[in-house]
């Protein structure tokens, strides 16, 4: 039984194919269309998934869409009715879109699927899962747990913005939900907006900015007090209530009532071009700490309601690795699994799996192991495919026919301070590059963070980089007891490799603080000594593991910098063509695609030829 899961028409469209309980393929549409967070129907992703499974659209048993549009429409109508006469402008803008596209979703989906290939409508059934059930299923079924508490948190589904569910013997039962307009995701997005970042994509920047805030400073504490007393009512059972007079998303076209926020916090809304000041960092820290408190309350409630030892997490808020680490450190649960594609894209996998287990009643077995295959569920390109691209561009290259020699060469180049585009194996599913579409470099190099941010990624200088560390060596560098294969936890850098900070560190300006050498691996040590680490495992990514092992043989350090292979505003590269173009428009030194090695200095192109404009996110 082949099931096609689809997530589309909001943001971050994706598709996946599941064969019984096995995820065969999954991919984000943005990687193919090259439009960041593409919301359209995922034609390319569906085509890829079918191709990977060797199927035509007519071979599919069922198509499952990740949410219920009628239920969402019901929420829309009821909330406009509730807030009327406010919200008329927003109503007039959104209703025609619903009537034209989203309300007739069944016809829309069938007509889009027809563009992919012919099928008989009678044989291709279309089903709709609930948004938070899709999230819950995306975490529970691949977790390998027999039973678990499931916590899903995001901006908004149909009515729910968060849910606690119980996964047991292959069934998921939703126990408790937090409903619109109360939403932790929207609360975090509101601060993302106020601090000058883009809603729905800048949330991780806010998380990266928070550690520059001064913990327990009077300003941070004051901000927390304001948030707690005026903006959100935090209840011990994990629920929250937003004070709607400060928010605009229910009736207007913006997230917040800006004037009221400016008065409340005594600072102006930051514009994207404005400099980042200490007060912005302190506010980011305040909302991050409040978020952690709410997430922890919800996790405690999930534990109380289910009594389970295991926890599964999904939904966009589950990408907040700092909050995830708070749950981890609390030891509330014995084991935690977080869906690597925790955002809406992951809903495609969840919808398909929920249908397979809960509707088709396929056999549920407890594997005890993560079934996400390391999140390497996307397309792969052979040396032959790559050669075609290199010929197209008349590029200069060297071919290594021995993998061992290739890894040895690459490790040597990393140690020599080169920045390398590393393109190998199947593309990752989820927002993180995990070593198959990555830019890699030496974590020991004191200049590397600056170089990567400003010359390679063209992004904000304050943003941290993540390390890839051999799983067996992770405890040597970080204070962490579990594996983190999907970069969904942060951990403190071990005391033994930390440098002593200047006494006035907290008073330093943001950029001076940033360039203070905090440890022996400065490129990945954030200003609060944390790192969002990825543990690399021989079983899920043997080539990447071998590369880092070679680097360790050479330098004694089993850790490198890993950042996604793209520039600011660009989706992560998918195919050799994307990789080559991205390589040419940045100051990356070397591009390695499977066994082909390209040195920038040997290419004979005008880099202007490759200057593509991506709208900064």
């Amino acid at each position, binding site marked *: 039984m082949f099931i096609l899961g689809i997530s589309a028409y909001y943001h971050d469209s994706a598709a996946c194919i599941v064969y019984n309980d096995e995820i065969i393929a999954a991919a984000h549409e943005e990687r193919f269309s090259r439009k960041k967070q593409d919301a359209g129907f995922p034609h390319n992703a569906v085509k890829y998934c079918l191709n990977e499974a060797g199927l035509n659209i007519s071979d599919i048993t069922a198509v499952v869409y990740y949410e219920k549009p009628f239920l969402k429409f019901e929420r829309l*109508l009821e909330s406009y009715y509730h807030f009327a006469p406010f919200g008329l402008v927003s109503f007039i803008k959104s*209703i025609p879109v619903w*009537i*034209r596209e989203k*309300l*007739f979703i069944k016809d829309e989906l069938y007509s889009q699927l027809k563009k992919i290939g012919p099928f008989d409508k009678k044989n291709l059934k279309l089903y709709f899962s609930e948004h938070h059930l899709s999230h819950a299923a995306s975490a529970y079924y691949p977790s390998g747990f027999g039973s678990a508490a499931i916590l899903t948190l995001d901006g908004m589904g149909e009515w729910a913005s968060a849910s606690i569910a119980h996964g047991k013997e292959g069934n998921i039962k939703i126990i408790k939900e937090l409903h619109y307009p109360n939403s932790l995701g929207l609360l975090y997005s509101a601060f993302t907006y106020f601090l000058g970042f883009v809603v729905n994509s800048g949330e991780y920047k806010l998380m990266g900015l928070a550690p520059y805030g001064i913990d327990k400073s009077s300003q941070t504490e004051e901000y927390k007090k304001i948030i707690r007393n005026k903006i959100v009512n935090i209840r011990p059972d994990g629920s929250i209530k937003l004070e709607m007079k400060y928010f605009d998303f229910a009736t207007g076209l913006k997230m917040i009532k800006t004037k009221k926020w400016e008065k409340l916090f005594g600072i102006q809304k930051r514009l994207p071009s404005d400099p980042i000041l200490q007060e912005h960092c302190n506010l980011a820290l305040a909302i991050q700490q409040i978020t952690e408190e709410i997430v922890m309350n919800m996790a405690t409630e999930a534990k109380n309601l289910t009594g389970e030892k295991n926890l599964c997490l999904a939904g966009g808020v589950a990408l907040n690795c700092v909050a995830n680490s708070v749950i981890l450190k609390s030891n509330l649960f014995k084991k935690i699994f977080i869906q690597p594609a925790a955002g809406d894209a992951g809903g495609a996998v969840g919808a398909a799996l929920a249908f397979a287990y809960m509707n088709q009643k396929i056999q549920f077995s407890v594997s005890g192991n993560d079934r996400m295959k390391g999140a390497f569920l996307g397309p792969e390109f052979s040396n032959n495919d790559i050669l075609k691209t290199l010929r197209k561009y008349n590029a200069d290259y060297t071919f290594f026919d021995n993998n061992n020699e290739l890894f040895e060469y690459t490790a040597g180049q990393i140690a020599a301070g080169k920045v390398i585009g590393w393109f190998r194996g199947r593309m990752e599913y989820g927002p993180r590059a995990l070593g198959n579409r990555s830019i890699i470099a030496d974590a020991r190099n004191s200049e590397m963070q600056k170089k990567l941010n400003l010359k390679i990624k063209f992004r904000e200088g304050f943003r941290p980089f993540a390390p890839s560390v051999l799983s067996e060596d992770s405890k040597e560098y970080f204070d962490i007891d579990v594996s983190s294969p999907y970069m969904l936890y942060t951990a403190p850098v071990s005391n033994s490799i930390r440098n002593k900070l200047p006494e006035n560190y907290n008073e330093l300006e943001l950029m001076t603080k940033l360039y203070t050498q905090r440890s022996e691996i400065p490129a990945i040590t954030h200003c609060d000594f944390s790192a969002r680490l990825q543990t690399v495992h021989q079983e899920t990514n043997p080539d990447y593991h071998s590369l880092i092992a070679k680097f360790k043989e050479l330098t004694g350090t089993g850790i490198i910098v890993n950042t996604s292979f793209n520039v600011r505003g660009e989706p992560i590269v998918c195919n050799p063509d994307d990789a080559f173009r991205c390589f040419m428009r940045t100051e990356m030194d070397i591009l390695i695609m499977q066994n082909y090695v390209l040195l920038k200095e040997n290419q004979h192109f005008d880099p202007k030829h490759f200057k593509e404009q991506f709208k900064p996110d």
Partner: protein
Amino acid sequence: MEFIKDIWNFLKERKKYWLIPIIIVLLLVGILIIFGGSSSVAPFVYTLF
């Protein structure tokens, strides 16, 4: 027809019958907006308002 059947089943299951008039009005307005865009129907639309 399938759409009407689906939405009726939905409203029945959710017991949200009070949404029916709103949905009918919205669909009628929606149809007018869509068809109002084409020149042959536009004059009839204008006379309605």
